[in-house]
Structures are given as C-alpha cells and as structure tokens.
C-alpha cells in the first residue's frame, strides 16, 4: 500500500528512541509485525495450504472409515492433528484470527495516513523529489509563470484531479491528486475480513442447524421457536425424461394453536418464520411407515393363494369371502430385533429387509400379530391359523427432509461481504495517482518540471502522463 512518497512522509515520525527496549519501541515493533505484509502473505499461503487438507481427507466421517482407508497409525495422527475436522481445529481458527488481527493492525497503522492525505496534502516538494520520480518530464515554455500555472491547474482540474497550488517567491508548485478512493477501498476490504469472521462466530454460537425427517400429515414441535410445524403435503415433480424437476412441501406454521403461515417450499425457496428458516433439503422413503402393502393369503392345506389384499396404513380391512380381518400396524425398512428390550427396530434407513406387522383376526377367535417379511415369506407361521400370509409388495411413504436453521450472524456476514466486494473493486479499478509541477521562471519563459507517481497501473499512468505532458507543451 505504501509507495515511495508515503515512506518519505512517514520518516517525519519520531525516529527510534535512544533508550534500549522501551515500551514505545516494543509496541511499535509489535504493530510493525502484525501490520506487516509479510505476515499477511504468510497467512494467505498457510491458510491456502492447510485448507487443501480438508478437501483431500473426507471430513467428519466415522473412525472406521479412516482406519479402513488410511490405516490405524495414520488415523491416530489425524486425530492428534485434527485432520478429521480441519476447519474447526484450534490452529486453523487461530490462523483466521491472526488474519483479522493482521488486517486490523494494518488498518490502524496505515489508514490515518490515507485519511490525512485526503484532507491535507504535501504541496511543496523539492526539485530533486520531482526528478526522482518514475514519470517525469521537463518542459520549456515561452509564457509567463502565471499563465502556465493557470493552464496546468485548469488542465488537471478538467481531468478530475484535485489541484492545489502554492506560489512561492520565484516559483509556483502545483500538486494534483486523483483516485484516493482506491486506497480507501483497500482498507474497507481489510476491515471486512474481521466483520465476516465475527459474523461467522456469532452464527456458530447463537445459531443452530438441524435436520428434520418429516412425514406428510404430521405436526412437529419446533422447540427453538416455540411453535409447531405441520407438513400438509409433499410431492415430487418430474421432467419429461423422468428426472426429478423439483420436490415440494406445503408447510403450515401453528403458533399458539392457530395456523399463522402457510407456504409451499421447494429447493431454493425456503419458509422463514420468526427468524427460523425451513429449507427443502432432501426426500426419501420413510423407514418406519409405508402407504400401502399387498398381501397374498395362502391356504395352508392346499398351498393355494386364495386372495390378495391391499392394506392401507393402520386401517382394518375385512377380506372378501374369507373369515378374516386384517390391519397393518408397523413397518420397518431394515428389520432388527433388540433381544434385551424385546423391541423391533430398523437397523438402517435403507430398505434392506422390509417387514410389516399385521394384526389378524380369524373368525373372531384366533387373534395374532405376526411380522411378515418381504424377502423371507416362509419365516414364521401362525399356529392354529388356516392361512399363511405373504408380504409381496408395498408402496413406500416419502418423507421430506427439512433443514431447519437460524443464523443471527448472517446480516453481519453479508455486510462484511459487501464491504469486501466494494472495497476490492474500488481498489482494483481506481488507482491513486499524484502529480507535482514546479514552474520555475528562466531568462526566456519558464521551465516546468513535471513528475508523477502511482502505486499501480503503471502503463495506464504512463500513457496519461505522456498525454498531459503533450497538452501542457502544445496548448501554449
């Protein structure tokens, strides 16, 4: 950020104190270190390098996955170094923190200078200073000192420069500057880093993110918002070629017992209520409920299928022509039995071993509640019953996966992001340039010493400088 003339003006600050390692010198050293570009570059590079780790090693997996892929020894190292969750390790967070400290210290150290040069400028400079600049020219003109000075001032002002002139005995010095916003922009961008990180922290401490698996027709309590959410409807739209176009849930918020908001959400179109966002995140087949099941009823003696019935969830049905009443009461997608608790449960969410539980009433005398299996039709047999039941098909019930989140830090993050983009754009589009002209009268006319500097965009500035020089030369 500092070009040479700045460094020159900085040197007017008090030099190193004479008394060894005083507090002042120490604090200056500290500021120097934390504001240094070296540190910034170090952080950029180290952050870039460490960030790659998390893209190569899968993050947040179960230990078995790592052991299987990398071996036990490697996994132990991963845990020690935090490689299984790189972005939340203390050292990665510290690097981010250091980046904030770095940019803030840089702001603290350099912005006052930019601020000063916005308000007051160094008009008087020595001839040697002008001649030492990268862009410089010396012109000889025939006009009077005043006429040339006026022309130069007008020309620069027309070009959008802010012009200051100082008339000393014997010579006139003109100073012109343009594009200071380019520098201000850089500092705005520096501040934004801290704001974004603070917004992120705010979100991770006071926000939450949950995933809800919800079924059509059910009402769920949202404790964080102290209201209820009812899933009225869930459906999937398809493209002509059969691929999924969108999936949608109609949700109703029930606050204090009364429905207050209804919205059909879809991917990219969430529902927001009291600062809590409900996103359509996924869908799938429920593992504890189905829409309908198809059952073959076999007569044990003749081994013949005497009837096929379709049962709806939890609805009793009397079978035509047979002395049977049936009901489907339970479903598990991947049957498993916990022998200590004597409980049936679904091992996974996959439909690996689907089973339903029936309640069968035969002639109002034999009552039974058998589990019947989709893959293993002959597994169980009901004693005393004249029939065998086969579970031959079912229509799965779709669940809608809702992401439920609140992030109080989000506004701050967006403010920081806006500052970042605006600041970066300003600093890359606008470049700060400064020009000095010293008009010294000679024996026939005047000599104009013109010098200019910029901290970047050298070729554009060179062009501009050349044009300016030509204009000063030719017009008069």
């Amino acid at each position: 950020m500092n070009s040479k003339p700045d460094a020159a003006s900085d040197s007017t600050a008090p030099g190193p104190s004479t008394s060894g390692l005083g507090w002042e010198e120490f604090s200056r050293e500290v500021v120097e270190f934390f504001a240094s570009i070296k540190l910034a570059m170090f952080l950029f590079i180290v952050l870039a390098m460490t960030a790659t780790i998390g893209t190569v090693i899968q993050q947040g997996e179960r230990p078995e996955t790592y052991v299987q892929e990398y071996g036990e020894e490697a996994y132990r190292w991963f845990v020690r170094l935090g490689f299984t969750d790189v972005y939340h390790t203390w050292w990665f967070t510290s690097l981010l923190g250091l980046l904030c400290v770095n940019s803030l210290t840089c702001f603290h150290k350099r912005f006052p200078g930019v601020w000063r040069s916005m308000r007051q400028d160094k008009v008087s400079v020595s001839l040697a200073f002008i001649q030492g600049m990268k862009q410089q020219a010396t012109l000889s003109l025939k006009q009077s000192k005043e006429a040339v000075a006026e022309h130069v001032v007008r020309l620069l002002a027309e070009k959008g420069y802010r012009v200051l002139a100082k008339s000393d005995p014997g010579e006139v010095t003109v100073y012109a500057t343009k594009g200071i916003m380019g520098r201000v922009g850089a500092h705005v961008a520096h501040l934004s880093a801290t704001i974004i990180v603070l917004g992120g922290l705010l979100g991770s401490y006071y926000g939450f993110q949950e995933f809800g698996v919800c079924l059509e027709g059910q009402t769920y309590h949202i404790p964080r918002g102290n209201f209820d959410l009812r899933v009225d409807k869930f459906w999937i739209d398809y493209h002509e070629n059969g691929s999924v176009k969108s999936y949608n849930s109609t949700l109703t918020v029930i606050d204090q017992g009364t429905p207050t908001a209804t919205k059909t959400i879809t991917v990219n179109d969430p529902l927001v209520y009291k600062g809590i966002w409900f996103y359509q995140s996924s869908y799938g087949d429920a593992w504890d409920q189905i829409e309908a099941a198809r059952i073959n009823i076999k007569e044990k003696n003749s081994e013949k299928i005497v009837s096929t019935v379709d049962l709806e969830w939890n609805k009793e049905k009397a079978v035509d022509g047979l002395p049977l009443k049936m009901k489907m009461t339970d479903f598990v997608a991947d049957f498993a039995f916990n022998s200590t608790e004597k409980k049936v449960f679904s091992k996974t969410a996959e439909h690996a071993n689907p089973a339903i539980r029936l309640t069968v009433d035969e002639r109002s005398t034999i009552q039974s509640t058998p589990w019947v299996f989709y893959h293993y039709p002959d597994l169980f047999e009901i004693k005393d019953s004249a029939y065998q039941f086969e579970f031959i098909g079912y229509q799965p019930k779709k669940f809608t996966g809702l992401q439920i989140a609140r992030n109080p830090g989000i506004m701050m993050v967006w403010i920081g992001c806006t500052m970042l983009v605006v600041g970066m754009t300003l600093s890359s589009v606008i470049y700060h340039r400064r020009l000095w002209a010293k008009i010294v009268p000679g024996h026939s006319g005047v000599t104009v010493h013109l010098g200019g500097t910029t901290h970047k965009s050298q070729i554009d500035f060179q062009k501009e400088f050349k044009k300016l020089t030509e204009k000063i030369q030719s017009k008069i």
Partner: protein
Amino acid sequence: MRSLFLFDMTFWLYLAALGLYVAYLFAKRPALQLAPAGHPIDHIEERDGAWATQLGQVATLVTVFGWVLNTLALTTRAFERMEHSGTFAPWSNQFEAMAYVSWAIILGYVLLEFRYRIKAVGAFVVGIGFIAMGAASLLPYRYQTAEPLVPALNSYWIYIHVSVTLTSYAAFAMAGGLGLMYLFKERAVNRGSQSRFYAAFPDLETIDELGYKAIMLGFPLLAFGIILGAMWANYAWGGYWSWDPKETWSLIVWLIYGAYIHARMTRGWLGHRAAIYAIFGFLMVIFCFWGVNFLLSGLHAYA
C-alpha cells in the same frame, strides 16, 4: 442439437486464429533489420513485411468471427435449455462452462487487442481460449447435451453466481497466458536473441503490467462469485459456508492471488517471479475448475 455444431465451428475457428497469430509472429520482422542506422521507424506498419500486417488483420478477423460463433452457440444452447427445462443459463454443466470460459477469454483478448494494439498476445491468450474449447469438446457426449437441471441448480442464482465465477477464471487464464509469454520473451532477451519470432512481442514491462491487470480484474470477480455462491448456498442448503471441496478450492485460489497482490504492491513482485506465480495460480484455477469436479466429491459434483 444445433448448438453442438456451432460449438464445433467455434473450435475450428479458434484453432485457425491461433495458427494465424503464430504465423503472424513468424512474419514479423525485427525493427532493427529494416531501420536505417540512426533512423528508427516509429510506425509499426512500415517495418513489417507486407503480409505480416495482413496476417495480423486476418487473425483478428478470424478471432472475432470465432467469438461471434461462440456467442451464437451459447445463445442457441440457451434456447435449447429453455425448451427443455425452463432455465436458460448456457453454463449449466462442465461443457457449457468451458465454452463460456473460452468465450470470456476471447472477449477479453479482443478488448485487449483493440485497446492496446498488441497482436502478439493472441498467440498465447487465444491459445488458452482454444485449449478451453478443445477440452470441452473432448468431454463425453453425455456431458455435452443440455440435460435438465437438478432441483438444487434450478434457480436464478445460477445466472449470476456461475457466470461471475467463470469470468474470473477467464481473467486468471489470461494472466496465465501473459505470464507464459513473459517467460518466453524474457528468455529471448536474456540470450540476446535476434530471432524474428520475438520482434512483435511487447516489452517485458507491458506484458507484466497486462498480466497484473488481468489478475486485478479476476481477484474481485472471484470474491464476488464466491460470495454469490455463499448467498445461494444459504438460500438453498441452509448454510452459507460448508467447506465443500469446490468452495474450499475457490477460497484457496482466492488466497493464492491475494498473497500475490499483496506481494506485488509492497514487496515488488514483478516480472519473472510474478509471471511464474501467475502460471502457478492459473494451474490452481484449472484444478479448482476441473480437478475438483472429477477427483473430489462434494456438493458441486453435479457440475
């Protein structure tokens, strides 16, 4: 699909343009050979062989024509998308994204040529545009068609997030091409080479500065693209940042260029070092754009 034919034509035109630009470099004559002692000729046209100028003009024409076809191809693809799925963004899969990047690179080059009147850059930058187009056409056919979008992508965010990010990639590609050019020229200068090939190259400082300009364009654009992506993610997935490989890699690329920009401003990373760094940065961009899609899994895997 009609657009595929147009993409194909674009490819061949870019190849022709590249050939012409290289031929133009060979046709140029060093100023020193023609200029009588003590009378350097300022006027560029005068010192070239007659057909060098013409070659250069034809090269520019072919490039512009190729770019027009590229534009047409993208527009046609946009209409095809509209018919199929109701969104038109012609950068909705890897193939289209590549075609868009080469469109942006060539546009950038044409603007650069008109502004700075330097044709020699074409041999490098049009080269990269051509390679991007070529790589796109090497993709399997199923990647090239306008399949309907998956629900997550079906949003107006795709218009702005993807195009901004891809444009920044194009800017970095230009910087990479200029970096390469710098190294070529530098080698020639160091050897004191009188080869005619380098006669048309602009001086080292100009190449360096143009490369820096390209990065200064790409750097804020990439930041903007990443932020738009974060806003989209916040809207679609319920979190603005989830350290998904694509997100992380775009951040890595941004950090890499961030280091460069800081180094250049104050530590004087110019010329040789800057050129090598620009090429390195571009390789990282390529990985972020291609490598991540094919090597790493993540939320952007459908691209």
